[in-house]
């Protein structure tokens, strides 16, 4: 069984823009799916538990967006538009719940069937992790300058530095030697990233 059952704690209402809530819900739900698959691929409980942690953040966001939506409605037109916002929020929550279910495979020590690995490794978007070597051009470079997304189609979803993990690093994030990059992309893109991280490839 799951180690802990979430206890819903009371949230305090704070005014916040619906736009900010939507952005965060979208980003967190996408991140959760990527992390959930990586927790299975790497058999990593730490990441799996972080997914569950993010799930409760999603609950809170959903609560906030519902309250904000109710306060914002003044007319029928308002209500129609706001229903779209709520539909979006509930869909993001479903995505995050699905990610939580995926992580539970690891948290509950379920045996992962070899077919699962076969399927995940053959998928279009896969997840890999690479250590940034001292020879790599990425060391001391910001993610913005590295342009990994537009140049080779790989996205850094998390960076492991010593004992901490930084999720969804921003563009200004500076990569350091020894960082472990958890990246999503196609096979070809990730092969390139691998040689960039090891320092074999210096231009991309």
């Amino acid at each position, binding site marked *: 069984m799951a180690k802990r059952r979430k206890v819903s704690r009371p949230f305090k209402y704070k005014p916040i823009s*619906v*736009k900010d809530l*939507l*952005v965060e819900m*979208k*980003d967190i739900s*996408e991140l959760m*799916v990527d992390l*959930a698959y990586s927790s*299975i691929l790497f058999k990593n409980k730490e990441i799996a538990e972080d997914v569950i942690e993010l799930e409760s953040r999603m609950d809170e966001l959903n609560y906030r967006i519902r309250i904000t939506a109710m306060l914002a409605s003044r007319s029928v037109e308002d209500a*129609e*538009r*706001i*229903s*779209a*916002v709520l*539909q*979006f929020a*509930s*869909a*993001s929550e*479903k*995505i995050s*719940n*699905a*990610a939580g*279910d*995926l992580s*539970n*495979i690891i948290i509950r020590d*379920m*045996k*992962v*069937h070899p*077919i*699962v690995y*076969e*399927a*995940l490794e*053959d*998928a*279009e*978007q896969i997840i890999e992790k690479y250590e940034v070597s001292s020879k790599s051009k990425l060391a001391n470079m910001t993610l913005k300058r590295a*342009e990994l*997304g*537009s*140049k*080779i*189609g790989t*996205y850094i979803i998390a960076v492991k530095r010593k004992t901490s993990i930084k999720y969804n690093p921003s*563009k200004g994030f500076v990569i350091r030697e020894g960082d472990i990059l958890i990246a999503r992309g*196609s*096979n*070809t*893109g990730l092969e390139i990233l691998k040689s960039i991280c090891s320092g074999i490839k210096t231009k991309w």
Partner: protein
Amino acid sequence: MADVLTQMKNNSELMVALSYTALLYNNRYIAEEVIELEEIVDKLNYEMGKKILSKASKVSTPEDLLSLIHITEATEAIADAAAEIADIVTRGIDAHPIFKEAMKETDQIIARVKICSKSIIIDKTFQEIKLQSKTGIYIFLVKRDKDYIYSPKKNFTVREGDILYGIGMESGVEKLQELANCKPQI
């Protein structure tokens, strides 16, 4: 069996990306594509269920298949959620302008560009047109008729009617539209 699950995962992730794009541009075509993909995922889900059951009857420890059931269910749930997002657009609710603002704040914009007649890039390869360095857009998918071509290579030849899906900055999307000689469908 693994290939069915792979397809489910690929499609469900594509659906999520496309559903956000549909919202951003309030674009019915993209939203309808998500709904079409949802039907495909439903069929794959059914197929996967049958395969898991028939495998379960042949092995001595059927509980080993539990992880497969969980993953199949999760990808199906993700696909359903994406269809719900697309549904906001297909229902024709004047999607709240807030979506547009919200989608723009996330740094990856997904572009969907159709190659129209007289486009200068027809019958050329990605390498020849230096698509990536010119537009900064990474093409991750091409739809040709009913087929989806994932991660097209550099020597991929563009044809009229192809629909290119790429990730990049908004300025790059405009350049790509110019090259494709097509106005965005709204």
